[in-house]
């Protein structure tokens, strides 16, 4: 599965397809609302939430402003603890390094040409599984949702719950049909009871864990001063991948570094509450290099750039690198709720995807150029973000960039991009804006969520939106339901 979905339709087209899929919309709505409410409760338990949020933002800003120094410190600490550090400028290079390391670990034994993987955004972003497959190496996803996605030959649609678009009946069918060709088949008479489905996954994956020689992971945090990596998870598949194999390869974006061990006290409080709405997630693993006689005896850390330094070069846009991938912004986003994760054409869906993908990949393609418009700028994402990323601010900034062009950094070089005016890209962007703004359901939910603490709420949109916001006010809340409205108008697309 590739991280960049080439040939993806631009946002509005993909979003409209999603809206027509009622199962998807029903699943998404149920899921996002459930997590949203639970999160609010988990956050309310901490009287100092705002202060933790500020500290998280500050720590990330300190790190980003001195990233070179912290990366060197991290490299030194990991190396001193017995690990090996590799640097990858782009996806292709990272894939090449991992492939080489897997082959080296497996020796000449072809049976060992397989890896077990714990869910990692970075390896999805670089399309690692496809690259490994091309070299004859099977990569098994072990997170339950990732397994559902992999067996279903599907794409993830949510950062945290990648199979959020699948209901239990669909999952049962996928397991029954596909497990057999990947390994141990689903038990006969499997029903759609979630506990039974989880049991089927446990049994299916256990044989893979027990024989695994190489594990591949990402990391939520890397501590520069100690060289410690941290993986936060729920199911225990992470622990399996991190402790049973002889060789562990972790592919981690360079922005995941934090300066000190103490800094974890902030994120280990804010991340679980923001993401799964728990006081603490079931399992967190921390390791520093290798430990004699315990866990993998060979550890490789692949530090990944792949557009991150380009993002860092943009003084407004760089705040997107503070993201700790909690997915809270997805769950409150009225546009995400209706459009679904696939519409964003990237492994990073929702509000964070709308600001991250166009920066990591550039705005050359229709889908990437349209992403900054895939928002009603209601600001709910900013309010819930545990590292206070001002997503609306970055969206507005990127819209300007798409429309007016200007200097950006691509692959480390300063380049000037042309204004999109009059091009297909502009039309795609306009359609995305119209979809998000004209969309009564999305807008209504957005207005309901819009909150007092929001700093930015432009009355006039820059770029192509400007003409628009000059001549019209935002639509009133309609009396009819979204579905009725949709059926009547086809989303205003015609």
């Amino acid at each position: 599965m590739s991280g960049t979905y080439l040939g993806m339709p631009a946002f509005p087209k993909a979003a409209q397809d999603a809206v027509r899929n009622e199962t998807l919309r029903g699943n998404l709505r149920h899921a996002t609302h459930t997590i949203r409410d639970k999160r609010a409760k988990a956050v309310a338990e901490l009287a100092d939430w705002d202060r933790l949020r500020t500290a998280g933002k500050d720590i990330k800003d300190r790190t980003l402003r001195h990233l070179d120094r912290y990366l060197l410190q991290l490299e030194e600490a990991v190396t001193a603890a017995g690990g090996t550090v590799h640097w990858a400028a782009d996806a292709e290079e990272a894939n090449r390094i991992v492939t080489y390391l897997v082959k080296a670990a497996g020796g000449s034994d072809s049976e060992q040409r397989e890896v077990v993987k714990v869910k990692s955004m970075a390896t999805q972003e670089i399309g690692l599984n496809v690259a490994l497959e091309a070299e004859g190496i099977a990569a098994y996803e072990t997170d339950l949702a990732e397994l559902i996605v992999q067996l279903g030959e599907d794409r993830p649609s949510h950062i945290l719950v990648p199979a959020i678009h699948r209901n239990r009946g669909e999952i049962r069918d996928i397991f029954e049909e596909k497990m057999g060709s990947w390994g141990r088949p689903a038990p006969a008479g499997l029903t759609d009871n979630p506990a039974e489905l989880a049991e089927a996954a446990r049994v299916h994956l256990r044989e893979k864990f027990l024989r695994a020689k190489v594990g591949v992971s990402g990391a939520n945090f890397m501590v520069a001063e100690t060289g410690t990596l941290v993986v936060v998870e729920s199911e225990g598949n992470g622990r399996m991948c991190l402790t049973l194999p002889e060789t562990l390869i972790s592919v981690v974006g360079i922005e995941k570094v934090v300066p000190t061990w103490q800094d974890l006290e902030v994120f280990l409080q804010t991340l679980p509450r923001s993401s799964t709405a728990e006081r603490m997630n079931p399992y967190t693993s921390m390791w520093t290099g290798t430990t004699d006689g315990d866990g993998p005896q060979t550890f490789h850390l692949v530090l990944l750039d792949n557009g991150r330094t380009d993002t860092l070069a943009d003084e407004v846009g760089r705040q997107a690198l503070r993201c700790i991938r909690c997915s809270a912004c997805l769950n409150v986003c009225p546009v995400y709720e209706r459009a679904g994760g696939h519409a964003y054409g990237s492994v990073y869906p929702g509000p964070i995807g709308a600001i991250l993908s166009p920066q990591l990949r550039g705005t050359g393609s229709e889908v990437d150029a349209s992403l900054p418009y895939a928002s009603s700028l209601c600001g709910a994402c900013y309010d819930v973000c545990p590292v206070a990323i001002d997503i609306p601010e970055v969206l507005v900034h990127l819209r300007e960039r798409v429309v007016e062009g200007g200097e950006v950094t691509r692959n480390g070089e300063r380049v000037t991009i042309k204004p999109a005016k009059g091009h297909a890209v502009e039309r795609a962007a306009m359609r995305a804006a119209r979809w998000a703004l004209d969309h009564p359901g999305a807008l209504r939910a957005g207005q309901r969520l819009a909150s007092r603490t929001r700093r930015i709420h432009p009355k006039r949109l820059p770029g192509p939106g400007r003409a628009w916001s000059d001549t019209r006010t935002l639509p009133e809340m309609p009396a009819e339901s979204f579905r009725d409205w949709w059926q009547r108008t086809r989303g205003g697309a015609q």
Partner: protein
Amino acid sequence: MSSSSGSKSSGSRERVLARVRRALADVPRDERPQDVRVERGYLRVHGDRTTEQTVELLAENLADYRALVHRVDAAGLPRLLKRLLAAHGSQSVLVPPGLPPRWLAAADPALVPDREADTAYELDTVDSVVTGCAVAIAETGTLVLDGGPDQGRRRITLVPDHHICVVRVPDQVVGSVPEALERLDPGRPQTWISGPSATSDIELNRVEGVHGPRMLEVILVDDRAEGQAPSMR
């Protein structure tokens, strides 16, 4: 030193670092990391609690995440362990090298030592594991294992389906995450455990037990009290 891993990545270290430095051209040359203010106004611990209340909160939060919580005094520990292992029907139990021998002196299952040479397949045939812990966090209901002598290798608390973790109260209990990190050594491999393994990937229904132990039992053992009757929860 960084490795070139047999591919053309040897130049990438310098390339990525150079890109980072160019990207940060707006950061004043003389700015030091500590010049970027980090506002640490958050609380060290949430709320005022007596030691007893902190232990009580730990028990509550552990139970809230579906761990089975038991309380006992030191003298009653071997009997309780014997009973819990029997109730689970365990034939064999993994034992970390530094677990006080007294703890399992009364237990019936075969004791399996934690050995490096064992394969994951062998561990998969063992029914239960009994360990101590490094620290327990009351506010989050979290047990932290750091590979200490009474905890063993990380994998022994992962592969068997039944984990019994003994927490010495109140010594090993802290209130909050910040207090826990202060006590822990980053050089040691750590596993933070909050309830049994779980997933919410199927329509967000919480299902306990995917890959880690499906049953987590926690014994809060009171080391201090003399002659205090064991109380079960």
